[in-house]
């Protein structure tokens, strides 16, 4: 949003965002939903507020989770060495049964770090800067909290937003497979490996242009599942059936994570 505001000459002075995260039932699996409140500071017109609200929903990560804008190409590599394409999943494949962890309710709070914005010698903004993010979730017995930093910086001090979200997808995939795959006699969960990558075109300018205009831009991602065993002991269809239940993969496929959104101007 900072980039969209800068490109559009919108006098955005500061920004904070709060997400309330909650479990949501999805067909055959456990999904999650978010309720978003964005707080903008600045002397903004109604048109500028609407433009920034659209940018929040159509930023690359927001699109991936709310619009089903990710196109995922899967492959499986077994520890025996064989590799095979694993997408699309066969039509009519039933999701693998088994228990997945409950998605605990919690919150994600992001505060923009104003002084991390970077400029070139002509005063043009080169990097939008970073955000401090507080994550709070309920463990089974008490509340747990973490602090993260992510954003855009020239020296790469913090991971950019989309790779941070992709790390969540990779971890979600690993968690789902470790819980669902019949590993007994084949290997253990620690034998699993999930590798993901992404291919996009147009760069940050285009991403911010899409966000400002409310355009959905499909992004291609590749995901390789490193699985123990062989194609005979751990059939690709079983892995595909497990992937059908992964919560973030479902969001990437179907969107719909955003349950409610508000934009408040202070």
């Amino acid at each position, binding site marked *: 949003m900072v980039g969209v505001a800068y490109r559009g000459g919108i006098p955005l002075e500061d920004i904070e965002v709060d*997400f309330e*995260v909650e479990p949501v039932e999805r067909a055959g699996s456990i999904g999650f939903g*978010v309720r978003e409140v964005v707080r903008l500071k600045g002397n903004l017109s109604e048109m500028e507020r609407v433009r920034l609200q659209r940018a929040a929903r159509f*930023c690359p*990560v*927001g699109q991936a*989770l709310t619009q089903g804008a990710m196109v995922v190409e899967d492959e499986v590599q077994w520890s025996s060495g064989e590799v095979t394409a694993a997408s699309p999943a066969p039509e009519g494949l039933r999701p693998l049964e088994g228990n997945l*962890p*409950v*998605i*605990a309710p*919690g919150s*994600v709070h*992001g505060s923009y770090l104003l002084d991390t914005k970077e400029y070139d010698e002509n005063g043009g903004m080169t990097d939008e800067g970073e955000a401090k*993010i507080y*994550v709070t*979730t*309920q*463990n*089974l*017995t008490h509340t*747990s909290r*973490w602090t993260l930093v*992510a*954003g855009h910086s020239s020296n*790469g001090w*913090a*991971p*950019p*937003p*989309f*790779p*941070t*979200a*992709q*790390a*969540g*997808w*990779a*971890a*979600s*995939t*690993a*968690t789902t497979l*470790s819980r669902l795959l019949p590993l007994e006699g084949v290997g253990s*969960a*620690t034998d*699993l*490996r999930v*590798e*993901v*990558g*992404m291919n*996009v*075109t147009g*760069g*940050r300018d285009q991403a911010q242009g899409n966000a400002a205009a409310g355009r959905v831009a499909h992004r291609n*991602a590749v995901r390789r599942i490193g699985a123990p065993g062989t194609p005979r002991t751990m059939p690709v269809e079983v892995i595909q059936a497990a992937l059908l239940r992964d919560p*973030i993969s479902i*969001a990437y496929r179907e969107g719909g994570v955003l349950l409610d959104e508000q934009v408040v101007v202070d």
Partner: protein
Amino acid sequence: MILDDSPAAASQPQRNIIARPVGEDTVLTLVGAGAGSRGPWPFVTGIPNLTSDVGGPPPQYLAVAGWAA
């Protein structure tokens, strides 16, 4: 390849984010794992359980954290 969400041109995607379970309830993920990638940035994610503290936020929260950023 510079790891960013704004590569300048289309190219064959490089799988430079790697996740591995390190226990029953914890996954370690490395962002920028490939040669030439920017990073690396490690993330620990965990899931609520009865036997231990959660080592990091659940994966869904990490994805939402990327959205917040």
